[in-house]
């Protein structure tokens, strides 16, 4: 019962709070004490390095922060081939690119960088990038 009363009072206060801030009796004060749950996330601090007096200088593994690729046909083949040399942030970082540009990027990986991708797989990769990462098709 007490809980319910609290909720009801709470509801009225939510409604009220804007009014209070908007019409403060202190001249010039428009809002104060506004908080909201952060939506951007927070970043944990890293721990101090473990060190020794020998000749070895090291840091820990480099962390990966790889966004999800768009769900769809061809995604798996991308995961197999593109991730061999680089993470797929190399795709998600790009601006939406025209289909022809994606095609030349994939061809560059094969012809210039020597990526062992069969013609059929290359076609699927290009199709996937066209379907989800051009100015007309990119969503995320």
């Amino acid at each position, binding site marked *: 019962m007490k809980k319910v009363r*609290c*909720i009801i*009072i*709470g*509801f*009225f*206060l*939510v*409604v*009220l*709070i*804007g*009014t*209070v801030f*908007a*019409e*403060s009796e*202190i001249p010039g004060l428009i*809002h*104060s*004490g506004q*908080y*909201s*749950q952060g*939506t*951007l996330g927070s*970043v*944990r601090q*890293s721990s101090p*390095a473990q060190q020794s007096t*020998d*000749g*070895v*200088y*090291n*840091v*820990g*593994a*480099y*962390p*990966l*922060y*790889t966004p999800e690729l768009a769900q769809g046909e061809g995604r798996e083949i991308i995961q197999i081939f593109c991730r*061999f*040399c*680089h*993470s797929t*942030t*190399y795709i998600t*970082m*790009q*601006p*939406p*690119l025209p289909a022809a*540009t994606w095609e030349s990027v994939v061809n560059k990986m094969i012809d*210039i*960088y*020597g*990526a062992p991708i069969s013609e059929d797989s290359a076609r699927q990769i290009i199709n996937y990038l066209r379907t989800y990462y051009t100015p007309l098709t990119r969503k*995320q």
Partner: protein
Amino acid sequence: MRLYINIGGEVMLEEKSGLMSRRFLLKMIGGGAVLLGLNKLTPASAQVSGQAIESLPSFTGPDANPYWNSVGSFVVYPQKLPLIQLTDRPVQLETPRNYFLAPFTPNAAFYVRWHLDEIPNAVSLSDWRLLVEGNVEKSLALSMSDLMNQFKPVSIAAVNQCSGNSRSRFQPRVPGGQWGNGAMGNALFTGVRLKDLLNAVGVKTGSSQVQFEGLDRGRGPEGKGSHSYLKSLGLSDPVIDETIVAYEMNGEPLPMLNGFPVRLVVPGKFATYWTKALTWIRVLTEPDTNYWMAKAYCIPNTPRGNTTPENVNEGKVEMIPIGSMPVRSFIITPDGSCKIPEEMPVSARGIAFSGYGRVVKVEFSWDGGKFWTKAELGEDYGQYSFRTWETTWIPKRTGKYVLSVRATDVKGNTQPDEGVWNPGGYLWNKIERQEVFVGAAK
């Protein structure tokens, strides 16, 4: 009295204050202003706290990136403060704008750009040697201790800027690292002159270039650009006399991600030549034709390296390796994050640099680039360093203002008001602008 208030699912604790007196609350309930108040809350909070509650989009384009930095998330890496992510494997991280208020960029905030996936996590200085070899009288293998003790140490303040810095401004957009303006940094580098090392090994006649290779490797096949990252400088290039092999950066060992144990410092040239984790210095008899010299990091042989997609597609464009950094300047504050009250003197501050010689003039404009005033230059740390600038601007009236900054170097090069376009996304140096809002103060 304590009040528990539920806003958007979150329970907040409000201490009793004069503002929230019981009488006052009752008055408000009686006043029937309930819904009106709620409506007012929403847009106001978006405006006031938008920066901390709403995120940037996860990508920009097909238009130009309108933000100063790139739009990636803040991420944490070893020996680094939170930096802006471009990619995670290989690692590319951008320095946030506010670090450029100082003439020297902290090591922990210095941007990161690797080309290949296998970058060093651990290096043993007991075994590591810098190898100076090739077309020389006598090859040398030098330990870190040898470098520090057998050669005269020299220090130089120099700007390291990625060739593709500001690539996200290009129209049409080009593939590649979508940097904002933060793929640059200035540091005091200390190390050994490349010339001293070359003299120590004795360069034989018939030599044309010096090639540099670091510890990084890629998973691609040997002989391809995806396997190793190789860069070369011509022996006749005057920069050879100024180049150093640095073992210190801002008075500290280099961060692993910035090229520990030593990196090449090529003052005035783009960072593509500043080989990280440098381990091989090879004197070549023939010009280097590897991918990273012949194909990558090449610019059109045109004024400003400017061309069009049409010319590229028609195969009309002669490409040459990128070289020195064109003059640039940046507004660091005001950054548009706060409204400025009219008549308040505002300190506009930033940095400028040029790879072609000392910056001699920085001009500031508050009307979008019609009228320019000279800014005051900060301390001179040498011709290859960031030069800070500062000026005081007093906005007389309310309104939206477009601030601009333009630098000129000792050779008379100045920043143009046009962008540039080339397929690599290099050499951007258009005049920078910052929009600010001036509000009423009376």
